[in-house]
């Protein structure tokens, strides 16, 4: 094996949102940073949202499931034992390349669910502790939104005004107004006006297959240029197999393979895993050795456990007028936290966040559902289905809080490997009883919301299989080393020069889209690491 670059102060595995934040913070504070990313760069012109191929390409080449996409940079995930398909992207920017950019901070109660609701665990810090980091990241990435949402204790600001809610958002807002329910023009990690290196959104509605305008705040555009300018070295096409340890029990670096099949060892004083809620436990479990038979950093036995994915429901309403609901952003136009907080009279604890989304693209309206009679959507039905729904259909999407269960887990598949022969991950996941009740309640309310807005028909997809974007909790934070993997700064309890800074470290899932929280937590941890450098154990 050979070293690709000289010894690093810090090695980061994964160039997604948390890796990008950490690389920027540590490089600008003088650390010699190397990041290994198994994917590559993508330019806005690589995406098809502004091209005739878009609707067909997003079903394959730009599908958010690595199993469906099957790119060279992707690794397979066995999801047979899960009603949710894990969705992620391997490349510079990570899953923010394909995320919808819902830029939502968690609420104060999310950090205190044990105290307030008697379930799961409190986080080792509070909303107030995290708030300055939410603010900093929000302004760095150029999020769009409107300050003053009463569902938060502070009137947090955005550097850009909200994106248009359009005819569709206004129609839905009037429905919420009739019911007296909370709604707000939604915060998005999408620029409503030109911001730094990004132009304004051009409303393609193709956010989830990569923004062709370069308006979405993906980490390749928001943090990596600054991190590289500060001296960080980003190595693409570098797939990590294992972390290595030295005679002192510290992590010495990582073994990785490049796209030509050559193996390398990257040494580093400190190693940060930022490889997402499946990739990170996979690497830790693949790093098992005689000294660490259950995998690295796993004395608690919780590496891979407590996986949370946020079961997601889509409640569609179809209206009797053209609402231009094919236009982006997608992105969210409205959000509602009306049923976010616990009300035990509903028969469950915690809640969910609603997002109003468009339904871009006509092809999506006419795809065949296997198992159905083709005459239901084709033949004499085809044109009614197409004309009756295209531009007239809105989605209230419901992200439901997923409480941690040890049985929901990431393990190594005994047979499946990636294209380099590295054991792949398998997820075992089931929806909890609390979440089942939560789903039913929220879906019924969302149908009411559409009806109040005048929908002529509604359609429910109770648990959307292709919705497993939020991969959380599989190497949780905590104060007690017997029931957590890392401390509040992301540092392993077992190995003091090993950190986990992606969504694996979540204690609970919250009920909102996690990227803002992932990045705020990563920034808080990286800043603490830099501030306390003189006390930090290093393998160098």
């Amino acid at each position, binding site marked *: 094996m050979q070293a690709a670059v000289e010894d690093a102060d810090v090695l980061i595995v994964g160039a997604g949102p948390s890796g990008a934040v950490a690389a920027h913070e540590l490089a600008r504070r003088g650390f010699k940073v190397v990041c290994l990313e198994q994917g590559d760069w993508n330019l806005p012109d690589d995406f098809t949202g502004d091209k005739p191929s878009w609707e067909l390409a997003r079903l394959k080449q730009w599908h958010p499931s690595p199993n469906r996409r099957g790119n060279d940079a992707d690794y397979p995930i066995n999801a047979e034992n899960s009603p949710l398909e894990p969705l992620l992207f391997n490349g510079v920017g990570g899953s923010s390349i394909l995320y919808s950019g819902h830029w939502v901070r968690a609420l104060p109660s999310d950090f205190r669910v044990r105290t307030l609701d008697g379930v799961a665990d409190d986080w080792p810090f509070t909303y107030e502790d995290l708030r300055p980091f939410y603010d900093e990241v929000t302004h760095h990435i150029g999020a769009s939104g409107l300050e003053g949402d009463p569902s938060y204790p502070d009137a947090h600001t955005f550097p850009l005004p909200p994106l248009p809610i359009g005819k569709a958002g206004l129609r839905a807002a009037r429905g919420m107004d009739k019911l007296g329910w909370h709604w707000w023009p939604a915060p998005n990690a999408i620029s409503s006006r030109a911001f730094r290196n990004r132009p304004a959104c051009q409303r393609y509605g193709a956010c989830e297959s990569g923004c062709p305008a370069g308006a979405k705040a993906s980490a390749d555009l928001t943090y990596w240029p600054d991190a590289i300018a500060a001296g960080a070295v980003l190595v693409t096409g570098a797939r990590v197999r294992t972390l290595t340890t030295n005679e002192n029990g510290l992590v010495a670096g990582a073994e990785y393979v490049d796209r030509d099949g050559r193996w390398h060892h990257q040494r580093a004083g400190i190693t940060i895993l930022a490889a997402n809620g499946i990739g990170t436990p996979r690497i830790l479990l693949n790093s098992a050795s005689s000294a660490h038979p259950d995998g690295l950093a796993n004395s608690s036995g919780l590496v891979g456990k407590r996986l949370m994915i946020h079961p997601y429901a889509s409640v569609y309403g179809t209206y009797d007028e053209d609402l231009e609901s094919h236009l982006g952003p997608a992105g969210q136009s409205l959000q509602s936290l009306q049923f976010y907080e*616990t009300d035990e009279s509903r028969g469950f604890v915690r809640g969910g966040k609603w997002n109003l989304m468009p339904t871009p693209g006509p092809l999506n309206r006419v795809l065949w559902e296997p198992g159905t009679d083709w005459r239901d959507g*084709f033949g004499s039905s085809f044109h009614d289905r197409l004309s009756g729904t295209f531009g007239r259909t809105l989605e209230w999407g419901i992200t439901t809080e997923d409480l941690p269960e040890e049985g929901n887990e990431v393990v190594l598949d005994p047979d499946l490997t990636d294209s380099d022969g590295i054991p792949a991950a398998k997820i075992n996941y089931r929806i909890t009883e609390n979440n089942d009740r939560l789903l039913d309640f929220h879906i019924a309310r969302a149908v009411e919301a559409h009806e109040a807005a005048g929908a002529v028909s509604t359609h429910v997809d109770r648990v959307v299989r292709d919705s497993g974007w939020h991969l959380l909790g599989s190497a949780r934070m905590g104060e007690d080393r017997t029931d957590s993997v890392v401390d509040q700064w992301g540092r392993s309890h077992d190995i003091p020069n090993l950190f986990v800074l992606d969504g694996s470290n979540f204690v609970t899932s919250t009920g909102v889209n996690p990227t803002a929280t992932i990045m705020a937590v990563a920034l808080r941890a990286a800043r603490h690491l830099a501030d306390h450098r003189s006390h930090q154990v290093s393998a160098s």
Partner: protein
Amino acid sequence: MLDPTARERLAVLADVLIPGTDAFPSASAAGVPADLIDRVLGFRPDLVPAFERALDLADGLEAEAALDLISGAHIAEFEALSTLVSGAYLQSPQVQQALSYRPAPRQANDDIDTYADLLEVVVDRGFDIHGAELS
């Protein structure tokens, strides 16, 4: 590239899947079995084998019987056929015009004025924030 026989077979199947109406052309009239199918096969080369198998399965059958057979027992083949035929159809400028589909780009204009009055009500109503005192 499809041979003439495959193209003829496709035209028959596609017109049963997407017949014409007063407002919309049929699949054949929109050009699906001609250049549009070639275009979308180029977009999705991974679907070519299943699409060709679907056409083979239809050999010697009436169109509706063929579609019943394929959709009932050959899911991948019917998904390929129906997705590519629909995808090709929606490439047609004639179809997009009939659908009043004017795709982006559009400007992201500020429209706060259209909902500011509704939002005042939300603010006035307030929100029961749980746990703020524990922060």
